[in-house]
């Protein structure tokens, strides 16, 4: 039989590449008998170019027509030769499929024909595809499937060392330069229209195989590929395909083939599994730090699930052409062992690439470890009175929550408003000691110093090359005034923010380069923002600036605020709806009035200078705090003590490589500016007193910037020998010993800085030891033990806590064992903003009716009154009244309460004088119904956090090396791209 070759050239664009292909066709040693050109470019230049090549037929098609349809139209133009009874045999028609980007070797067709002529059973033969730009690299040579149907290229991006030249029978060949017997092509009804590019040839070849023919690769025939299957299938002059798009196409093709190849009974099951599988695989993508592919996963699953008749059509097409069972192609599939091996190799390659890109850091041991251990000892020593306590009280400390359900319940949005984002931080904290949530607070406070040292080390080590400066940074960060004030005044949120900030800065610095770091930075950012909402403006500015500086990493950086947004959105909406956006700045946790900040204190990094001055006052009795504050001497001494650190921070800029100190210094400036801007703002009220915003977190940011810059300066001084350029030159004694002099200077400055930090921190840090701190060890309750005991069985039990003040009587209603941190809501503490007429607030004065009703009860309790309060107390489930005042200071309130026949005095307790409501009240008010949206909101929030966590967790940092024990002698030689094979 005479072979008649119909070359079909599918041209989607013209130009140089097409010309090469056309020229190569002319240069073939065995010219095709017919040349059918399919003009899918749609521009005149290409049409002219094609016509100039003198094709047999020119067929025009739209640019978006799929591969199979293009071939089909070409074949329509060439009638099938009538079968002849000639004894010399009829004409054996072959199709040679070429794309505009596939330039065949001059002898490609000849060798392909040579291969098929000697083997009549072969119905398709493909050439070896080489990359046109690197003609020694194999672009593809044969395709196969795993046992589960995932397509795998037999060779891909390998250096051609003739390692595949013994390959002959394959499951499938790529469509580039594929020679197909026309009869077989018609028998299997051509390409599947549902597979426009990816896997189209694989599917065709599989059906040809099932129709009883063979498919072979012909390594001697070569085709140079310019664009590749996917790109060549795209219309337009300069097509692009993103990683996302490619993944979607591949997944879509695989799912389509799965539904097509599956036994009829299994098809519904496969169809039902589409979406669950997509979800599982999406989670897998997150774990593998490929969040961009999540959308593609769902798009592919949905497009296959609702692809109309394409799957039934494909199944019918397959059934009509099939003559053999699936077992016929089993030997040609890739064995599972080899699949595993390939995956392992790919993972290794990926990890080693990651590890290569990781910048070197100073080793943690022994320097950093020693600092952390010393900080732990110091912290345990300074906070010794707190060790062993079940809870901490005083300042803004309170028990975290009575129990686990209360802790988790605090995450929900109630009718009072959205939960604070800080509730999630508290839940995280409290879950670590789930049997007694308040215990975690004790642990955190005692461990605050070593944790801060660890964070300080981690952040500093990211920026310096020596362990010395990193250790100095760790010490300075652990001894920051902001941390010490937060500990002694019981500002939990500020402690959390201080401990988290260095990790956030490190993660954010790397976030642009790695999805894992972006996830970590997002979560840490959410923690910091939740703990210190007043820091959010500074963080936003830093974030925007960082994006402007790194525009190329915009994609990952843009995702940083997502977890924080998830936490804040309900609160933001609630505050906006109420018309009190200023309330968003409120510090979470217990509103407690602490010492006010002063400009001098801000500059020196002290949120509350009184914490520092109170011990001094004890040393120098007779000098009042006010006098000390007013003394410029104190400020001067403190400023002098701070000078070495600041000098180091600024000096760093003058040293070589010192420009990296700019970012920390900008952070420091941001922190100082925020602290200044916040220092005069109060948005909540506690017991009739204004609660100013805590400037501690802002000062933490400032301190972090200065510490990092100082460490960089120190590093610059130590790291490079040689004479000192610039301003630091003057400090060096003697030109001859310049290098030694610099080291001496560095050592002196570092010693000074550390000593000064220790001296400044010492009085305040020892406040807990000396008992002058607000923080104290306590029981996990704020109400008397009697109330706590009753509340154990009756958590809805109410206690009216009345505190006589100069300006009136403060009152609040506690439930259960008393105030807990988890139940605090800034929506409540900032309710005072409503109608206050402050800028940004709206609404008229609308005193909340609850508060007014409570006020009426309290007024009638603390003054002689003829009102029968029993029904009102019952309605609020108030069983106890606590007069929170030292004996003798309560004034007329005691008389009124004592003289009230509706109350029975229980006695003076550790927290005040307690009364029991005489009348029995067994009925408890039903819990207020939660808004219907509560579970939805919480679910969405938790899902976003969980997904970010998946993205953040480092996966297989040290993978198990796969054991190669199979006797495969022809294993893949080099790197593979990560396969898309799964399930």
């Amino acid at each position, binding site marked *: 039989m005479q072979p008649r070759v119909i070359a079909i050239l599918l041209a989607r664009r013209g130009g140089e590449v097409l010309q090469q292909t056309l020229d190569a066709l002319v240069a073939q040693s065995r010219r095709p008998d017919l040349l059918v050109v399919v003009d899918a470019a749609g521009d005149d230049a290409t049409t002219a170019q094609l016509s100039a090549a003198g094709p047999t037929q020119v067929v025009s098609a739209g640019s978006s027509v799929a591969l199979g349809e293009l071939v089909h139209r070409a074949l329509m133009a060439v009638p099938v030769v009538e079968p002849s009874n000639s004894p010399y045999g009829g004409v054996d028609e072959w199709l040679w499929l070429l794309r505009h980007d596939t330039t065949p070797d001059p002898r490609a067709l000849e060798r392909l024909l040579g291969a098929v002529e000697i083997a009549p059973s072969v119905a398709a033969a493909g050439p070896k595809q080489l990359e046109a730009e690197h003609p020694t690299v194999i672009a593809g040579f044969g395709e196969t499937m795993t046992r589960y149907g995932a397509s795998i290229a037999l060779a891909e991006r390998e250096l051609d060392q003739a390692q595949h030249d013994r390959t002959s029978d394959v499951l499938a060949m790529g469509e580039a330069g594929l020679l197909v017997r026309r009869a077989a092509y018609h028998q299997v009804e051509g390409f599947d229209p549902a597979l426009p590019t990816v896997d189209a040839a694989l599917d065709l070849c599989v059906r040809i195989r099932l129709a009883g023919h063979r498919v072979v690769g012909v390594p001697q025939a070569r085709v140079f590929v310019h664009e590749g299957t996917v790109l060549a299938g795209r219309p337009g002059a300069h097509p692009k395909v993103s990683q996302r798009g490619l993944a979607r196409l591949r997944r879509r093709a695989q799912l389509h083939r799965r539904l097509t190849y599956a036994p009829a009974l299994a098809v519904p099951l496969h169809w039902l599994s589409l979406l669950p599988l997509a979800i599982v695989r999406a989670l897998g993508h997150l774990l593998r730090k490929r969040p961009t592919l999540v959308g593609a996963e769902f798009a592919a699953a949905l497009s296959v699930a609702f692809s109309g008749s394409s799957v039934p059509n494909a199944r019918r097409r397959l059934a009509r052409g099939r003559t053999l069972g699936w077992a016929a192609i089993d030997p040609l599939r890739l064995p599972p062992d080899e699949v595993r091996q390939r995956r392992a190799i790919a993972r290794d390659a990926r990890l080693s690439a990651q590890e290569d890109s990781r910048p070197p850091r100073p080793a943690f041991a022994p320097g950093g470890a020693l600092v952390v251990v010393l900080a732990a000892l110091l912290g345990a020593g300074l906070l010794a009175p707190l060790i062993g306590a079940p809870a901490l009280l005083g300042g803004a400390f309170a028990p975290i929550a009575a129990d686990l359900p209360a802790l988790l319940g605090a995450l929900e949005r109630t009718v009072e408003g959205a939960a604070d984002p800080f509730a999630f931080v508290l839940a995280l904290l409290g879950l670590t000691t789930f049997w007694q949530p308040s215990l975690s607070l004790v642990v955190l406070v005692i461990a605050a110093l070593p944790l801060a040292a660890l964070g300080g080390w981690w952040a500093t080590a990211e920026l310096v090359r020596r362990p010395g400066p990193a250790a100095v940074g760790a010490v300075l960060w652990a001894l920051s005034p902001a941390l010490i004030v937060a500990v002694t005044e019981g500002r939990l949120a500020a402690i959390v923010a201080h401990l988290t900030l260095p990790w956030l800065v490190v993660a954010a610095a790397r976030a642009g380069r790695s999805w894992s770091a972006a996830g970590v930075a997002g979560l840490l950012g959410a923690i910091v923002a939740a703990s210190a909402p007043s820091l959010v403006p500074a963080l936003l500015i830093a974030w925007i600036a960082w994006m402007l500086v790194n525009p190329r990493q915009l994609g990952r950086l843009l995702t940083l605020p997502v977890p924080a947004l998830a936490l804040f959105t309900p609160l933001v909406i609630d505050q906006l709806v109420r018309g009190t956006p200023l309330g968003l700045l409120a510090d979470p946790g217990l509103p407690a009035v602490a010492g006010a900040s002063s400009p001098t204190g801000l500059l020196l990094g002290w949120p509350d200078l009184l914490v520092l001055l109170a011990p001094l006052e004890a040393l120098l009795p007779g000098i009042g705090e006010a006098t000390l504050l007013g003394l410029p001497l104190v400020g001067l001494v403190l400023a002098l003590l701070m000078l070495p650190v*600041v000098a180091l921070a600024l000096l760093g800029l003058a040293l070589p490589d010192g420009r990296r100190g700019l970012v920390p210094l900008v952070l420091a400036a941001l922190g100082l500016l925020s602290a200044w801007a916040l220092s005069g703002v*109060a*948005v909540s009220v506690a017991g009739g*007193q204004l609660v100013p915003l805590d400037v501690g977190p802002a000062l933490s940011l400032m301190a972090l910037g200065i510490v990092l810059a100082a460490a960089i300066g120190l590093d610059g001084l130590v790291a490079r020998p040689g004479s000192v350029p610039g301003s630091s030159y003057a400090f060096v004694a003697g030109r001859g010993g310049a290098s030694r002099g610099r080291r001496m200077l560095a050592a002196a400055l570092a010693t000074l800085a550390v000593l000064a930090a220790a001296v400044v921190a010492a009085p305040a840090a020892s406040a807990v030891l000396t008992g002058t701190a607000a923080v104290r060890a306590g029981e996990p309750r704020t109400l008397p033990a009697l109330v706590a005991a009753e509340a154990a069985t009756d958590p809805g039990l109410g206690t009216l806590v009345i505190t006589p003040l100069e300006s009136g009587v403060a*009152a609040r209603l506690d439930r259960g064992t008393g105030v807990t941190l988890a139940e605090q809501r800034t929506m409540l503490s900032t309710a005072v903003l409503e109608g206050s007429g402050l800028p940004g607030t709206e609404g008229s004065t609308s005193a909340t009716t609850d508060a007014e009703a409570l006020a009426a009860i309290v*007024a009638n309790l603390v003054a*002689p*009154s003829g009102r029968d309060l029993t029904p009102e107390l019952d309605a609020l489930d108030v069983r106890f009244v606590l007069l929170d005042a030292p004996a003798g200071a309560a004034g007329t309130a005691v008389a009124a309460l004592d003289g009230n026949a509706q109350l029975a005095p229980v006695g003076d307790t550790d927290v005040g004088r307690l009364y029991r409501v005489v009348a029995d009240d067994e009925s408890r008010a039903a819990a207020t119904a939660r808004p219907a949206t509560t579970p939805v909101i919480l679910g969405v929030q938790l899902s976003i956090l969980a997904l970010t966590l998946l993205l953040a967790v480092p996966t297989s940092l040290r993978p198990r090396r796969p054991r190669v024990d199979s006797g495969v002698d022809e294993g893949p030689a080099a790197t593979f791209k990560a396969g898309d094979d799964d399930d």
Partner: protein
Amino acid sequence: MTDPQTPGTPVTPPSPTAPPSTPPSTPPSTPPSPAAPTSPAESTLPAAESAPKPRRTRALLAAGGRASLALIATGAAAALALGVLFVPSPAIAPEPLAFAVTPDRSDQSLVCAGAALGLTRGDDPQVAGIALPLRRSAGAGLVESTIAESDALDGAATVVTLPREAPAEAVAASESVRPTTADVAGLAAAECLTPARTAWLVGGSTTVGRSTWIVLSNAGAVDATVSLRIMAENGPIEAPGTSGIIVAAGEQRVLPLSGIAVNVESPVIEVTSSGGSVAATLQHTIVRGLDPSGISIVTPVEAPATRHVIPALPVINGQAVLERSTADGGADALTALRMLAPGDTAAQVTLRLIPEGDGTGIALTTTLEPQTVLDLPFTDLLDGDYAVVVEASEPIVMSARTSSAGTSGLDLEWFTPAPAIEPGVDVLAAVAPVGTGATARLHLFAPEGEATVTVDGRTVVVPADSGLVLETPTNAAVQLSSTAPLHASVSYRGDSVLAGTRILPPPLAARPVTVLPY
């Protein structure tokens, strides 16, 4: 960022106190870095002496650039610091939520002193009421009741209650009693009291012929536990039975002071109750020789204060009193002030006796030893109505004692300081009925500036720091209001009788309470 030396750097463990970059911790001989990627200046500078000139210049230029960057940063930091120090930060603060709630009216109860007390005759003498009081109550809708149980036979005090649903806003009541037994004679008057937690009874005596009864009345619904603390001319007196005195609801206890402190000339009794509140009064009677020589009911000072005002201290027939009293040697008929600084420090006291009209007063200064009662007698006071103003450096309690002499003998009276009536507050007062032969005078004193006072619709002007005396009918209700702080009292006088009642501001219950919800 990459520094090839780092891995090989010998590291000594840094410590938090000694900086890790002290010389031993840095490599003793750091080889020059072969790679200085970011700064070409560095690799050339070690050989700067012999380096070609252009490279050296370039290095210097780079160094200069860095130096100027550092200088700019320093300048910016300094500017920022100055800005923070001197630019005021924005101040935003809401007004704390505060509700001024007027408590519901309660039943306002005033507890009157009750009958004059004496001992029954016989072998087993008992405390008994020996003369029933006359009472004037003012206030529409008030209800009078009697305390259910009393230690004294027939002596139970009357409680004047203004129920909360009564039409009137205020209530006032005063009682007078005029016993004429062989032991007790004279006129005593007392305003009815709002029960309180603390009371300082300044008066009484337990020397021979003097008897002092402490009357504790609990008109409320809650039992009260009362403690007494007694201080006298020689300091505090420790005595058993002064604490844990239970005055049950609706009960009146009568305690003889002589049972606690015998032969005390100048006692001051602090009454503290917990639980319910009590009304505490003290009855002081004197028998000179065999003649009953006066009765007084002492109403309490609420709390120690640095300033006390007694609007009226009448000195009547001073010469006769002096003569009569010296007859039996007792000095306690003299006009005197009793003062006590109950705190731990001595008090400097300035006292002024300001006569009504334009007479000359007395001003003197003295020192009160802590917790020691001082009786300060005045022997040469001219007759007249004096206002007493006492100012002390420490909180004190005080009271004034005087006697009047008449045809039928002496009568004793203690005048307790009257609390200030705030401007604009309507005060209802009751002038006690005192029977025939006695008149009443209303005394007004404005210590802080001229006050225009409306008395039952009549407007009078009380000059600053001066007293004004108005005749007033007895057994009457008086409505008062003033434009400046005012102290007011009523004195009752007749032949051989003298008594006084105070005019008290309305109790605190009527005032709004500021409640600050969380």
